């Protein structure tokens, strides 16, 4: 009888450790899944922004796969969560100045969307080369579209 109790006790401990380890692994797996989902969402956002009605340059109804700098000056993006979306001109290189209606086009950075949480735990940054269009000079320049996602 005593032996049976000892065996049951040891087995219970083993099963308890197994359940605890399994629970920890599941938690870690859920965290990874959350991170992957967030990365996926950011990637989808990054790839669709250049063709979004709010930012893209269109000519005679055709999407030109470029961002219109006039639209970047007064963007109308909403409900994208805690993110900062910026567009930076890299070629031709120009002075490192944030673009506003008063200094356009003598600038190189446009903040399209900015919503930060009160406390930032984690930041994910992904970027993509993009074409930016200047309607007044009818020129295309090279830029980088960057999404910073905060959690």
């Amino acid at each position, binding site marked *: 009888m005593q032996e049976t109790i000892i065996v049951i006790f040891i087995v219970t401990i083993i099963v308890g450790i197994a359940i605890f380890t399994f629970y920890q692994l599941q938690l870690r797996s859920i965290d990874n899944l959350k991170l992957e989902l967030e990365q996926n969402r950011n*990637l989808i956002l990054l790839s669709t922004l250049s063709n979004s009605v709010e930012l893209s340059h269109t000519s005679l109804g055709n999407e030109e796969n470029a961002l219109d700098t006039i639209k970047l000056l007064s963007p109308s993006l909403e409900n994208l969560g805690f993110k900062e979306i910026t567009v930076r001109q*890299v070629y031709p290189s120009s002075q490192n100045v944030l673009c506003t209606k008063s200094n356009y086009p003598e600038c190189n950075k446009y903040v399209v969307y900015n919503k930060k949480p009160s406390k930032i735990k984690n930041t994910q940054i992904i970027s993509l*080369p993009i074409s930016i269009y200047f309607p007044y000079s009818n020129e*295309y320049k090279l830029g*980088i579209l960057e999404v910073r996602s905060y959690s």
Partner: protein
Amino acid sequence: MKKAQLETMGLVVIIVLLAFILVFVLQIMVKPEANTLNSRYMQLNADNLRSSILKTSICNEINLKDEIVNCNSFSNVQCDNLQDCNSLNNLIRKMIEDSLNVTRKYKFTAGDILVEKNFNLCKDIYSSVSEPIPYSDINITLLIC
């Protein structure tokens, strides 16, 4: 407790332990491919960079694609801010290196034009969709890794 009952109990315990081991093994074996997201990101970078640099204006109404055609067809450039086809190569190199954040290994080909860096060290190669130039045999591709 009878001996038969004890043996049954032992069997149940063994089965429970085996089930736990099986769950752990399955969890490790059935892990999704971690590189899917990264490969999509690299592919997107290659495609976007190729289309963006070709569209970039070099001088009045002339973009990089036009100058690539000029260099391949006439071995000369039209824009005054470029001296020759060699400086066009340097310009392409500068554009790629300034805008490509994900990697430093690339290979850009457009007919006779070849711009590359550390491409022989590549293992997983991501190729942009190639862009043929109409009425010529020039095919523009960008490979990154």
